[in-house]
């Protein structure tokens, strides 16, 4: 499956849906997995996101959780005929996500989507490395499923501050996750279910290897040069992490697709709030703005000017 880049005017089918909450269960400290059931959801791909109204869809928009919608990556999608289930994994950090955490099965939520440009799986690169940190993991879970289904050799690298902030379920006993620098194993349920091995690391060493995911990933690249030469790297998480991962890839000439986050109001390309600086040699200042919500959230890492990077004028 080669995912075609769409023309800027082809925004794809999208709509507003009333979805029923199937489940909304804690996965680790402050993180929940929300399963939404809805009908007629258009075709979507990993990397795309939805805008969820974190307030009662029948109520006044100034009451309840949050006023504008909140963007969340699609963390999984299952279809049965016209019916569809979406997985959203979220971390509670403010009024919108706090409201989501209170949802009970059966109630309805307004979902707008699918939005954004998805990851691309170029046909000539048989290996896919997925590098996710914290709430950057959800799109990686779905990507693992899709990439494995189209025959890619997939390896996942998962990072979190601590064991209790990793929104993934260890397969088997928690202490079964390898603590030493060994090869990826089928250690995390979300990836293992697609036959995808993972390396886990936490900053404090409470699960998997102690250390940060970019370091662990970079050392993996160094020791797997032949495999890495055929890979595409997909990464999502905090921007400093993305920047380190992207740098390692660039040094080795491995293509890297980053999934970025920006504060969004519309998510549909109308409000111009979600800008990302993109390198542009033809521009007098060396860069121009693109929109995270429509030109992204997935970008070629080499094009991105990072938020704290000094670049151009």
């Amino acid at each position, binding site marked *: 499956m080669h995912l075609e880049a769409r023309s800027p*005017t082809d925004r794809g089918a999208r709509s507003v849906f009333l979805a029923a909450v199937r489940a909304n269960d804690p996965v680790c400290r402050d993180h929940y997995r929300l399963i939404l059931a809805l009908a007629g959801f258009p075709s979507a791909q990993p990397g795309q996101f939805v805008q969820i109204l974190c307030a009662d869809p*029948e109520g006044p928009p100034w009451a309840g959780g949050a006023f504008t919608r909140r963007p969340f990556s699609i963390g999984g999608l299952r279809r049965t005929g016209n019916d569809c289930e979406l997985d959203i994994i979220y971390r509670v950090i403010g009024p919108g996500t706090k409201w989501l955490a209170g949802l009970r099965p059966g109630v309805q939520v307004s979902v707008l989507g699918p939005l954004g440009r998805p990851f691309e799986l170029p046909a000539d690169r048989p290996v896919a490395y997925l590098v996710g940190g914290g709430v950057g993991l959800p799109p990686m879970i779905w990507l693992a499923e899709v990439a494995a289904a189209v025959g890619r050799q997939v390896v996942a690298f998962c990072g979190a501050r601590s064991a209790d902030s990793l929104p993934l379920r260890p397969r088997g006993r928690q202490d079964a996750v390898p603590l030493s620098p060994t090869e990826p194993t089928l250690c995390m349920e979300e990836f293992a279910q697609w036959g995808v091995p993972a390396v886990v690391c936490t900053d404090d060493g409470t699960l998997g290897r102690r250390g940060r995911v970019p370091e662990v990933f970079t050392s993996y690249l160094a020791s797997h040069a032949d495999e890495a030469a055929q890979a595409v790297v997909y990464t999502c998480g905090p921007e400093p992490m993305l920047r380190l991962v992207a740098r390692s890839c660039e040094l080795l000439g491995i293509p890297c697709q980053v999934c970025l986050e920006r504060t969004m109001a519309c998510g549909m390309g109308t409000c111009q709030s979600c800008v990302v600086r993109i390198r542009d040699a033809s521009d007098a200042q060396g860069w121009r703005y693109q929109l995270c919500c429509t030109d992204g959230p997935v970008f070629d890492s080499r094009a991105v000017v990072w938020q704290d990077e000094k670049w151009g004028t």
Partner: protein
Amino acid sequence: MRPTYDTRTAPTDTGGLTLPVGRRMLAGMESSINLSTVDMAVRIGRLTLRNPVVTLSGTCGYGDEYGPFMDLSLLGAFTTKSVTLEPRRGNAPPRVVETAGGMLNAIGLANVGLERFIAEKLPVLSALGVPAIVNVAGHTIEEYVKVCRTLDAQPAVAGLELNVSCPNVADGLVFGTDAGALGELVRAVRAEVRRAVLIVKLSPNVTDISRTAAAAIEAGAEALSMVNTFVGMAIDIERRRPVLSNTTGGLSGPAIKPLALHMVHRVYRQVAGPAGIPIIGMGGIVTWRDAVEFILAGATAVGIGTALFIDPTTPLKVVEGLRAYLASRNILAVSELVGRLERGR
């Protein structure tokens, strides 16, 4: 049962609302006219809109973004993001932040510029089958005149809306807050614009909005859009810094509705009503009930902005809710409702 704030249910009750027209005409009675016989058309200067609901500058892109959600030809009119002579990048992010019942934005008039607008955006816009109002901003009178003259020559442009009220750029506000400067600008543009309807979008960031309204009308504005966003700010107390990179931004959404409504009422009473100049009322409209309030205050048409981010189909729900409201009160044309606010209690 909790009240329904949606328009999926037709409003056939008068319970709890102070609706002078309805009370006088047909309190509590079943609708006796058919929904389809309600005349929803309104006139904005020489332009006739099929209904009074328009989408607002900066909240609906250039036209194709909301295409997947609704048939845009069902709108009264569509207003583009501000167009300037040269392209503008706009401000550094963060450009938006949510506040109680609304949001602050400091986009900084990011737009593709006149040349690319005409080459790339206008053809898409003209294919939508909806009157296109192009919002224009500039640094100087010369810039406004040049952009307006060029756009006036484009048959796809039905109206020109002068944005003299952008709070997020250093130059925008001076025309909007100084009645003398505003009059000069509108006169200069008026002399060059022959075909398109000339609309002036007023800034609420003034002591007396009737003065700028009067200056715009006197200089030849055919309609007034009111209002743009209110200057505001938000502070991140952890970092002890403004949230927006621009420090200040423009407040929009339900939080500003009472303020905007008052301004429409005031200008309608004092200036626009007597002069016969229509007002496009805007600021925090989310439901058809909000739209009815603005029309009763004196707006001929109503604009939907921030609410589009929450539901792009809001304008169509407002049209249907408004139509049902009128039918239920035996009001044959929406234009009959304009300014029909009764005094006293």
